[in-house]
């Protein structure tokens, strides 16, 4: 396990471009943040949490928006459409679930 990490780190450190290394930094730190943020969730909030993380994963819409240009219209447009459905639907579904918790 440790050997794998060291060899991978060696490959990336010696051969990787600076953008790769900076993206990798963000990725590794984000993994830790995500792990620790949801460690202490009360079980009753598991379903709304699943719903909100699903809505946040709709951030893929940014990828579709960046690629939409005069040459590529159809595929990015479909990607943006279904990702937006997910975002709006996801946050609204979470809101409906959370409203049930009001005392």
């Amino acid at each position, binding site marked *: 396990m440790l050997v794998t990490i060291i060899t991978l780190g060696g490959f990336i450190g010696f051969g*990787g*471009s600076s953008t*790769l290394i900076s993206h990798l930094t963000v990725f590794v730190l984000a993994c830790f*943040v995500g792990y620790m*943020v*949801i460690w202490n*969730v*009360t079980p*009753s*909030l598991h*379903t*709304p*949490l699943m*719903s*909100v*993380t*699903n*809505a*946040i*994963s*709709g951030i*893929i*819409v*940014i*990828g*579709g*928006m*960046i*690629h*939409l*240009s*005069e*040459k*590529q*219209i159809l*595929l*990015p*447009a479909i*990607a*943006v*459409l*279904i*990702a*937006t*459905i*997910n*975002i*709006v*639907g*996801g*946050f*609204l*579904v*979470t*809101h*409906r*679930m*959370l409203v*049930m*918790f009001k005392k």
Partner: protein
Amino acid sequence: MPEGIITVAYILSGALFILSLRGLSHQETARKGNLYGILGMIIAISATLFAGNTNTLWILIAVMITGGVIGLVVARRVAMTEMPELVAILHSFVGASAVLVGIVSHLEQETKIGSELIIHQIEIVLGVFIGAYTFTGSVIAFLKLRGSISGKPLTMPLRHQLDLLLLFSAGICGFWVFFRYSATAYSASCNNFHCWTSRDSHDYGNWWCRYACSGFHA
């Protein structure tokens, strides 16, 4: 709009997403957490709208308004008992969206060399594979939650070997894409391999191969 301000907006929306998840771990802060998530998403999308191509901006806005209306209507009409199914089907949309973005990123390749090309190819291959897997898996989850498919796991006699075979074939497809389009990655001079680097972007056959390989796994 300068690129620096866009990046700062992304940092802000990332922080808001983290605060959103933290808010949803306790009941008192749960609704504020949802609001942070919405705010973060609005900031990220607005920043990208300002940074993008202004000719096709109207297509983007029209598509997003359509998607927003569909999402609003669907989420309002669903009964509370059907929520998990709705979350499953929405998640399949995200998987499909990831596959489409990966394919477009492949079709729109700019010339890269060396390690950047390798990373680009790996990202596209992984994105399409995981996205396709997410899509079909979530659709199966939706159908099982609805009751259209039985909740019992499908236990075929050779299922582990079949899974390995599917994973292996998806890997073959991935390597094929990787080497077909990045011969320059492992030859320092492009001259010897210039016949390989003709980026024939109408090569859809391979994408259906990978999609089908990951689709049957569910």
